[in-house]
């Protein structure tokens, strides 16, 4: 059995003439916390959409836990958790009702107990009876994360998880991600703009530029070679030389 949780070959997504993702060949090993960097419009969200079976690739293949996201999408989905950017859930339902809904859809046995365990893990059991509509962005993100890990997925996809959070919220989230990775062994695949987050959270990074993978290595090797955090920024800027044409 191979150790790759995510494995893509020549993965490509085109919108008309424009290739949002170009011949992406990328592997992420079990247990990694992978940070996916890139400018606005680089193709990060498009990649996550393909890996979470939302979007059909134009060409190439992608496997999640050995299952093809196109031909075995139902099987692949059993292994993934997904937290979209700005996740919101149902405002008029309590946190528990929201989680119960997704637990049932994920086929979780004994959902009530699993919800309690998950909320305890995320240190937010008190949120359960409250309406999600009344939540701040940080709390919504927490329930969004709870929803994604109820079924204890092998790999968790996070799209810009820190977007819109205050520094405290960012720190809390970072700690949760690291704990999730350590305690459950969940592989993390995380899109981000924030270089500062990468060095603190991730074990490896990839840099996408205009749909193409321009850099891929472990954080260890990067710091070994380039030293401090500011050099990581230099590295990032050096591998993404031109501001993407269409980027805002």
């Amino acid at each position, binding site marked *: 059995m191979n150790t790759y949780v995510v494995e893509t070959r020549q993965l490509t997504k085109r919108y008309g003439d424009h290739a949002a993702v170009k011949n992406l060949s990328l592997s992420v090993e079990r247990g990694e916390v992978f940070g996916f960097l890139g400018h606005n419009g680089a193709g990060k969200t498009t990649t996550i*959409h393909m890996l*979470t*079976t*939302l*979007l059909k690739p134009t060409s190439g293949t992608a496997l999640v836990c050995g299952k093809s996201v196109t031909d075995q999408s*139902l*099987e692949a*989905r*059993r292994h*993934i958790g*997904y937290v*979209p*950017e*700005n*996740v*919101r*859930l*149902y*405002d*008029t*339902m309590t946190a528990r009702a929201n989680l119960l*809904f*997704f637990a*049932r*859809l*994920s*086929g979780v046995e004994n959902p009530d107990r699993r919800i309690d365990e998950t909320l305890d893990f995320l240190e937010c059991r008190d949120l359960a009876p409250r309406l999600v509509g009344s939540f701040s962005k940080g709390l919504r993100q927490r329930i969004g994360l709870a*929803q994604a890990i109820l079924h204890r997925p092998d790999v968790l996809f996070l799209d810009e998880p820190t977007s819109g959070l205050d520094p405290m919220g960012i720190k809390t989230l970072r700690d949760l991600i690291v704990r999730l990775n350590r305690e459950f062994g969940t592989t993390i695949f995380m899109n981000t703009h924030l270089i500062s987050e990468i060095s603190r959270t991730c074990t490896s990074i990839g840099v996408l530029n205009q749909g193409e993978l321009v850099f891929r290595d472990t954080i260890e090797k990067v710091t070994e070679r380039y030293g401090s955090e500011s050099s990581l920024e230099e590295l990032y800027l050096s591998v993404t030389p031109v501001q993407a044409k269409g980027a805002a």
Partner: protein
Amino acid sequence: MRNLIQPVLTIAGKDIRDALKDRFIILMTAFLLLASLVALAVAAIALKVDVATYAEAKAGLIALGKDASTIPDPAFYPLKLLRGFVEHVEIIGAIIGILIGYRAAASERGRQTLALIVTRPISQWQFLAGKVLAGTAIISSGLILAFVIAGIAVIAISGIVLNPEDIGRLAIVMSAAGLYALAFFLLGFVTALWAKKLPNALLLAFTVWLSFVLIAPQIGDTLDPDNQVAGGVFKQLQIAKPQQVEILQSFSTYETIRNGIEVASPTKHFERLSFAVLGIKDTYAGQPLMPILAEKASDLVWLLAIALALGLLLFARRLDPNRLSKE
């Protein structure tokens, strides 16, 4: 088996609970009930006036020393009182259908929840079936409530207890109303699921509503010469049946167009069926049910076909992820 059905029920259950909390849907349903009761009251008053006129005429005849038994007692069909109710179901029922369908899709868009549902290990058909099941359940319970209240109101106003056949007629019209509202539910759902921008979906659905519920039946009615003269053109002109047929033949293209406009409208099919089954249209009043059903079965088939076609459209197309996260 349980694995196939359970996600469908989960999605349906959530939507039903959610719709019950939706003030706008509750308000529209209350409005439908209220408008129906008003229509029934108005019909009852009109009936009382008719009865009074009859009694007066009869008294007049007796006063003149004539035999009053030559004028027959007017036939009274309590279900006829439901005309206004049926018309409200046509118009407001369609709106409620569209709104429930719209919110079934709109409530998932822009909150990323549709994307989350689609990345769960369930099939697209299970998601859609859950939505349609919820819509059907909400519409059915609303209609059952409306028809029970209307039936009780008819009994209260007319003082006549409905016989089992009358109740059967009500049940048939209620089922047709269910199909009718379901067609508009599917219209609202499909457009809100597929439209690039949500407001466009509502605009499109209500354009269809305007064309098929309000305009098409009106055009059909206005173009029908029989509707322009009380009692019908031929009757007023005292033209004999063979001549009527002859005259109508020279207007056959006109009649085809007029009929075509009516046939395109689910509203008209529902109305033709309901007016016949309930005896609201005079030619059917007091007629036995079975021959009426046989004659109007095609209208029921049309309603079924329209709902089925929209359903097929819904299930045949793959969900577009570009719509999943956009408001």
